[in-house]
């Protein structure tokens, strides 16, 4: 007998968790002398109040879909890839190299090649942690954190040396050639005479993100590889019995995870209004991916919803900090609370709800 219906598991529990996170956030707002209601209104307006704001929300959401999927795929194999941040940066390196050094005739080709390069570079960056996890049992969490630092070192080295055009101050690559610029959603809306997304950088890669969602959904629930990933994630000993190679699945799941994280670079290098790779290109998206995956219950649909929420939070938080004296780190606090309640304190929320359902169902049986 199931302890509670499916809908309660996928909707009610996360919603209650979010509510708890929201309550604590309200307390935080209060404690720094900010009227929580005002703050929430400001954030909501900042997230969706104008077409530009909405566009930015979608732009960030695109990032978070990629990193959320990355974390989720690894989670299905019971692996905690906390290295999204580094994989995004190195993925960016891949996209930048492809865009800068190959003369592309058209953005479609550049998108394909840039996306592939970003994925490959992202995957390469997780190869060693994955290998060490698979073959040496070194804990993936700590190795990927270490690789985040090294990625940032590598990126800065590249951006302040090989990839920085002479005379440019900013630790960044040159702006990518015109032919690699991805059309923004507003350009597309413009074809229909609309200004829907203003000048926000939300661009065609949001569709790539959605495609990736479909891909992950197919992969996890409709392919043998996904079946093996989930089986391995649920029970390593059973996987061993079935002849599912722990080494292979660990490697493959993490490489896919790294590739998805890397692909985020398409959005935040080729997709932005001035396409280039800058030194802090990841901007915390790798970490937000954890919250997104946890909240989205590692399912693409949940991840899309959670990514939109976090996109709104991120964008709204920036607007909030522009309008008040609250630093934008408030978003990190909320993110932490969401991770805490939907992740670690899941049981705290779940048990009472299960209890309620049990009480109801046993009553129903008696009657």
């Amino acid at each position, binding site marked *: 007998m199931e302890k509670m219906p499916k809908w309660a598991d996928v909707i009610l529990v996360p919603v209650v968790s979010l509510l708890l996170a929201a309550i604590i956030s309200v307390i935080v707002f209060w404690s720094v002398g900010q009227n929580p209601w005002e703050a929430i209104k400001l954030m909501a307006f900042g997230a969706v109040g104008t077409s530009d704001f909405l566009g930015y929300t979608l732009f960030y959401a695109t990032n978070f879909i990629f990193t959320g999927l990355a974390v989720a795929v690894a989670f299905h194999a019971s692996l905690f890839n906390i290295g999204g941040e580094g994989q995004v940066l190195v993925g960016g390196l891949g996209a930048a190299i492809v865009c800068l050094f190959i003369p592309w005739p058209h953005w479609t080709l550049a998108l394909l090649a840039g996306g592939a390069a970003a994925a490959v570079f992202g995957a390469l960056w997780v190869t060693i942690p994955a290998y060490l996890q698979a073959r040496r049992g070194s804990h993936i969490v700590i190795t990927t954190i270490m690789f985040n630092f090294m990625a940032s070192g590598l990126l*800065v080295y590249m951006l302040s040396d090989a990839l920085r055009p002479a005379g440019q101050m900013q630790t960044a690559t040159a702006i990518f050639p015109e032919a690699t610029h991805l059309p923004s959603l507003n350009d597309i809306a413009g074809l229909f005479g609309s200004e829907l997304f203003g000048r926000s*950088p939300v661009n065609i890669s949001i569709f790539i993100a959605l495609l990736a969602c479909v891909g992950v959904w197919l992969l996890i629930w409709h392919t043998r590889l996904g079946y093996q990933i989930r089986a391995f994630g649920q029970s390593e000993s059973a996987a061993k019995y079935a002849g599912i190679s722990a080494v292979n699945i660990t490697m493959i799941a993490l490489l896919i995870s790294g590739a998805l994280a890397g692909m985020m670079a398409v959005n935040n290098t080729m997709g932005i209004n001035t396409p280039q790779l800058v030194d*802090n290109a990841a901007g915390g998206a790798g970490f937000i991916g954890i919250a997104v995956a946890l909240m989205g219950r590692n399912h693409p649909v949940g991840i899309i919803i959670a990514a939109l929420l976090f996109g709104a939070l991120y964008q709204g938080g920036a607007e909030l900090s522009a309008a008040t004296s609250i630093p934008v780190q408030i978003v990190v606090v909320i993110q932490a609370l969401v991770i805490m309640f939907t992740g670690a304190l899941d049981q705290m929320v779940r048990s009472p709800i299960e209890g309620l359902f049990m009480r109801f169902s046993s009553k129903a049986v008696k009657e």
Partner: protein
Amino acid sequence: DGHSAGPAIIYDLGGKFDKSFNESAYNGAQRWADENGQEFAEFEITSDAQREQAIRRFAEDGNSPIVMAGFSWATALETVAADHPDTDFVVIDVSWIDMPNVRAVGFKEQEGSYLVGMMAGMASETDTVSFVGGMDIPLIRRFACGYAQGAMAANEDMTIISNMTGTTPAAWNDPVKGSELALSQISQGSDVVFAAAGGTGVGVLQTAADEGILSIGVDANQNYLFPGQVLTSMLKRVDNVVYESFSGTTDAGIVILGVAEGGVGVALDEFNAELVSEDMLASVEAATAAMASGELMVHDYMSDETCPALEF
């Protein structure tokens, strides 16, 4: 919403209160506000993705002029400025944007650094002076290189130790490491340390004060932080640029401010009066004059990415 259509300022990633570059910009804006009893809009970004968004928002709200502190604004500004031809923009630490509605202000940091380097060289008893940079980027190397040239000018046999705190933006904000770097330099004999490292510099100055050696601040006047122990500060009058821009007394175009223009210089006040000897004052004055006249050309690291006085 809340923004009046007055001037606006946007700070760079280091944050408004970095006791340094951004704070100096803030001080200029605040001085203008205090003197005129008016308000200005401001914003601290937290990621690069926000740059364009931030400028655009102020422009659309009708703010003018919009001042941006930091070279990282260049690319975003070029896009937005084209869309808002009627808004005035000022960007600091950028010397290459040539647009009719943009004032791009650069500084000859090498000149100011040269002056403090000279003072350091004269103050040093160990013939060893040192430099702590923040993030290792060409701009900071320009500081280091100017400083080294100045120190060498004071004494040919000067040993110059130079360290950068790091290669990521975190390097602007790592006073612990700044402190360790300073300690290590002191033990290598340095008795004057110049910190051009944002928040990291606070750690350097603190340690120098603890260890009883002299330090040199940067950007804003930091002499007051440890009275009697900060030899001077290499002023980069970002505050003036902001103040003047807000006051509406400037035009578009590229401006490079050196010693002659009062854009960079040394800080002299009651907190370091006892540390600055007559000799030093005289040398600084002489060098300033020589720079103004073009007689003295301090090598700019960024012109060719080399430095005659220092190896990186």
